[in-house]
């Protein structure tokens, strides 16, 4: 066991850090043009879009989870821009690399990497949440175009996107899964209406998207007709960020400890309160177990091995820890629970944890996700019989 980097990875780390010193200054952070240039340079150096071939605008590196981790951490350390965020890069690009036509790869991938195309995900529908395959949005091929009718929901930031990739029922007579195709289309067209959904914390991150004869060119289908379900499952050949979830939990936990140092509870710093200490230490046990399981997964990934059941647990652990932190936070901040944080009037104080208490709920949602996650752990992880 060795948690230190190998010689060659240490050298790589130095190389990345030198690159950043030469190519990034924090005062560029507000200059979109400089950011674009930086991303291009960093891609050229092999640090971004590592899993995307050079012909499509990536840097085409062979997978190395440790290098990926070094890049992630070094870039984050100086707040340098990383890959374009969002489902375009996370989901569509790997799918196109796997199942897209050559034309699709050429037309969509490079512009997604530059951020010119921003993608929304059209999966969930009001009647098809955890049971996604029961979706009803319809696509018909009429005169060389797909005509799309129906409704999607929970599309993250659709109102800021240019395109959508969606699962659409194109073969009404085929079976539940076999009737679905994977279509691409533009969002800025008369047949598409986007309505942001206000969340309980006042933010508007998710949208409903309505289609009335929305149109897509006939060849903007990924895979064949009726293959959409399979296409959407095409594995993400990614440098998996297996410690990502855990280190997010740890960051949040560390912030709560900091809050507890600042906040007064019963006339002393909350961190000195025995109940707060016990509660935080209890959470830290979970956080550290989760993080160490992440080290193990990283180590497995790096060696091409399968981490087994703990590899299925990241989502649930993050959710559970989020709930625990929410409950502890509500005790730490005391009467500040009565106040809604208002980011418009400046940096909020302790009441920002009111927002975290709400956001911790979102993690468990998306249509019974926790229950489905538990099923997966039980069936795939423990080998229990399917229902």
């Amino acid at each position, binding site marked *: 066991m060795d948690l230190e980097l190998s010689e060659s990875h240490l050298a790589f780390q130095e190389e990345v850090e030198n690159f950043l010193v030469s190519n990034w200054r924090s005062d560029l952070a507000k200059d979109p043009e400089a950011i674009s240039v930086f991303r291009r340079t960093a891609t050229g150096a092999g640090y971004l879009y590592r899993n995307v071939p050079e012909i499509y605008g990536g840097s085409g590196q062979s997978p190395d989870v440790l290098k990926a981790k070094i890049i992630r951490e070094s870039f984050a350390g100086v707040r340098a821009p990383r890959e374009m965020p969002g489902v375009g890069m996370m989901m569509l690009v790997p799918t196109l690399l796997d199942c897209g036509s050559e034309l699709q790869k050429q037309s969509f991938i490079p512009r997604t990497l530059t951020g010119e195309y921003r993608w929304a995900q059209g999966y*969930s529908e009001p009647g098809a*949440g955890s049971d996604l395959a029961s979706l009803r949005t319809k696509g018909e091929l009429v005169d060389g175009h797909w005509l799309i009718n129906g409704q999607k929901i929970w599309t993250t930031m659709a109102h800021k996107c240019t395109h959508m990739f969606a699962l659409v029922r194109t073969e009404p007579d085929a079976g539940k899964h076999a009737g679905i195709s994977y279509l691409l289309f533009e969002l800025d067209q008369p047949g598409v209406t986007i309505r942001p959904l206000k969340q309980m914390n006042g933010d508007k991150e998710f949208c409903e998207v309505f289609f009335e004869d929305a149109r897509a060119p006939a060849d903007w289908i990924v895979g064949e007709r009726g293959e959409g379900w399979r296409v959407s499952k095409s594995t993400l050949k990614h440098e998996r960020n297996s410690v990502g979830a855990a280190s997010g939990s740890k960051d949040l936990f560390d912030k709560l400890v900091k809050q507890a140092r600042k906040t007064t509870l019963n006339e002393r710093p909350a961190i000195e309160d025995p109940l707060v200490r016990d509660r935080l230490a209890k959470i830290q046990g979970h956080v550290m177990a989760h993080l160490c399981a992440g080290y193990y997964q990283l180590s497995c990934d790096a060696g091409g091995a399968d981490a087994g059941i703990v590899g299925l647990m990241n989502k649930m652990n993050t959710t559970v820890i989020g*709930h625990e932190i929410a409950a502890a936070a509500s005790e730490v901040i005391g*009467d*500040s629970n009565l106040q809604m944080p*208002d980011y418009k009037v400046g940096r909020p104080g302790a009441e920002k944890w009111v927002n975290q208490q709400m956001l911790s709920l979102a993690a468990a949602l998306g249509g019974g996700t926790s229950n489905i996650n*538990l099923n997966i752990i039980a069936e795939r992880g423990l080998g229990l019989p399917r229902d």
Partner: protein
Amino acid sequence: MDFHLSEEQEMIRDSLVGCYSQCNSDELLVQKYDREPALDDELWRAQLALGLTGVMVPESLGGLGMDLLTLAVAAEVSASYAVATPMEYQCLAAWAIACSDSQTLIETWLQPIVLGEKIATLALSDEGAEGGPDSLSTHDGATVSGIRRFVPFAAEADIAVLTLGDGKLGLVELRHDSVVREAVAPLDRSRPVCHLRLDSTPVVIFPEALAQRLYDAALILHAASAFGAAKRCLDMSVEYAKVREQFGQLIGQFQALKHQLAHMALDTEPARFLYWYAAHCWDIETEDARQMAALCKAHLGEVAVDTARAAVEVHGGIGFTWELPIHIWLKRAMADSAIYGTPARQRARSAELARW
């Protein structure tokens, strides 16, 4: 031996349900919740018309002469419709003034409050919180200075009854020049709050040391209110499970969800009787009345937040939206749980009061 509400209490409860289910149906409530947080005039007038304000004022002083249990049941119903009025504070202020043993206070304030001509709120300290009991102080017995955080409906109220330490209560007029009401964005938009800053504000001190009784009564009312939120969240979740389908069946048929709902019910349903009991102990002034007030505030506050959070999860994504009113009860539950001392704080008080 009879652990039931009286017929009169049930009548009051039913008439409130009748009133609120019309004026604060879910659709109306969702609309109202989008406006700036404020006292709901329509419901305030409806409550005044029902004569609620004098519920705990002795009959000899023109009130209904009923008990805290009655008011607590009313608070539960108001909570379950997220009614945006300061009625519970108004009622307790009226009670405190009626019991103040001060003719001046009674003659000046009781009737305007009972008639609803003046709006009263409570500005109680959570004894353990930042800026605790000492942040409001009176040196001369005639004026008061300092800060009190998170005073409900302070923007609309004409007067506030304050705790001043050592069991003392005081009354201040909020429209006085010396009073600054600092607006705060409230988590619970059905109960707006302000921070009060007083600077040599004239105060009338109550001759009777009623602060503990008043504080305990407020704890019990917030426990009842928390119960109202929890119960509403439970009921909405059960109803949703009976109509929402996934994988070709009602989600209420999935055993895991069934058990989640059963656990929510196990937490919630018996807790109603704990707030009844605490109110009853307060009413007949049992030895453990103070402890029961703390314990029931702690228990109900925690149960309500847990149940409301579970309800959001039962509803899936839609539960996280603004359009489904479940967040309204979540926020009410969070506020009831935090005001005047969090569950852990109230448990510590309960342990002390139990002489552990």
